[in-house]
């Protein structure tokens, strides 16, 4: 038995939707052949991730090997997944980021036919799109994203995925080289929000877009999500790397992550860092909406890495200051082809 992937996952693929067993259920030693030429660019990304998951499931490596053929052949031989193809490099080094790719996959993984179903009786854990991010919005109403970060967003109608401009350079290069460029179109703020409201966006991309585009978000109705005197803590760190002033946020967020703090005090401390009050309100709202802030009952005490720290003290303030200066200098340097560095 072998698995031939020639039609891709997409509903508009010429030969229909490929039937794929869940990566978790994928049997060992099943040969896989992938006809890259027949796949859309997005399909290639999905297939790559699918294969990576299979490799991970079986505890083996996913090893790219350059070859000349247009067809990717994968010999799944226990310890290794070997991939040979001329175009496979695109599959493996594709710069575009897809988070929660399994959720995308799941949308396109149809119930397995009898032959495969025998191999995949164990049900895959459910992780439907509705169970993904935005837990607060499910309770509190529709979300609206706004701000100055819109301008170079691309919406993929096929997969309802919005590509982030933080990878615009890579995105444009990849899309321009692909016949699938026609499937991605610029999307403006209003259209974005219309689609969000209609549930027509891949929800996992929404949060990363908000941070990377430096936008704000609001729930319909606009009621505050957290009371002023509410004790909260940062339970879950966001990726603020693409916010220009992330350094100002970190000392306060560290404080909020190691001990409960009142919502109003959290805001005041951030403002004291020199961040504009409106910006503070906007980003705190994002943290709350995406479930990164947790309410804490007054009696609860939290502490991180509670043991004393001789080693930390061995780093003097002046050395830490020099390190900070160096990191700032590195951050200020122009970056090359984001996402493409190995």
């Amino acid at each position, binding site marked *: 038995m072998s698995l031939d992937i020639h039609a891709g996952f997409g509903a508009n693929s010429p030969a229909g939707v490929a039937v794929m067993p869940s990566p978790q259920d994928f049997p060992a030693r099943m040969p896989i052949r992938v006809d890259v030429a027949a796949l859309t660019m997005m399909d290639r990304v999905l297939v790559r991730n699918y294969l990576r*998951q299979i490799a991970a499931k079986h505890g083996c490596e996913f090893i790219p090997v350059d070859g000349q053929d247009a067809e990717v052949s994968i010999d799944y031989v226990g310890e290794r997944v070997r991939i040979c193809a001329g175009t496979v490099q695109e599959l493996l080094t594709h710069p575009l980021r897809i988070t929660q790719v399994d959720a995308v996959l799941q949308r396109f993984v149809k119930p397995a036919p009898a032959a495969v179903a025998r191999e995949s009786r164990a049900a895959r854990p459910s992780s439907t799109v509705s169970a993904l991010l935005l837990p607060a919005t499910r309770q509190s109403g529709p979300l609206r994203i706004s701000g100055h970060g819109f301008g170079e967003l691309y919406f993929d109608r096929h997969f309802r995925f919005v590509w982030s401009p933080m990878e615009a350079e890579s995105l444009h290069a990849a899309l321009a080289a692909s016949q699938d460029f026609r499937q991605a179109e610029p999307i403006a703020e209003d259209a974005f929000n219309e689609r969000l409201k209609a549930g027509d966006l891949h929800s996992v991309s929404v949060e990363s877009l908000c941070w990377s585009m430096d936008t704000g978000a609001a729930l319909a109705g606009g009621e505050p999500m957290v009371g002023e005197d509410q004790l909260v803590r940062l339970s879950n760190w966001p990726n603020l790397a693409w916010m220009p002033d992330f350094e100002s946020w970190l000392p306060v967020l560290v404080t909020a992550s190691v001990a409960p703090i009142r919502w109003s005090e959290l805001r005041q401390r951030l403002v004291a860092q020199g961040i504009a009050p409106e910006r503070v309100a906007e980003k705190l709202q994002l943290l709350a909406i995406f479930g990164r802030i947790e309410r804490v009952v007054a009696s609860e005490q939290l502490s991180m890495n509670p043991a004393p720290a001789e080693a930390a003290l061995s780093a003097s303030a002046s050395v830490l200051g020099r390190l900070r200066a160096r990191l700032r200098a590195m951050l200020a340097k122009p*970056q090359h082809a984001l996402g493409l560095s190995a």
Partner: protein
Amino acid sequence: MKIVFVGPPGVGKSTAIRTLSDFPPVTTEVPSSDEERMTTVALDFGEIDLDGDEPLRLYGVPGQERFEFIWPLVSDGAVGMFFLVNCTDPEPLKVLDEYLTNFAELADKVPAIVVLCHGDAAPDSLREQQFVRHLEQRGRPMPVVELDLRKKREALYLMHMLLALIERRRSSEAG
């Protein structure tokens, strides 16, 4: 002064150190127990120059017990550490547990961050929360953040996060 990156082979330790180091990282290799593979990277080493001071040394080490002989070398003088987790690992929490146990002594002394890598290929949703809860249940709460360390900006963000944790630790001890 050292910072230690702990994680399984292929998780991104070398990449992170290459991203941050002032010179191409030095890599040492040892034979793998698996004959199919030629070598397994045992240690990555890079440096960030600190303008007149001793440089900040960056060490990348595998967390498996068979590399135990390296740990004292890299732990001595460490001021912070990162546990890099491969999100595509079938049992990432189990792997993390192993590393937390192996590096418990260092993690008790210095600020540590769990970094979720390869999130773009990971199967589970809401995995950050799962890690946060798991660490709390183990009595070892620490920040968990998902990053792509191939991107210089995200690697630098991680360093800034650690720096903020170190400075808070210093100020709370001083206070």
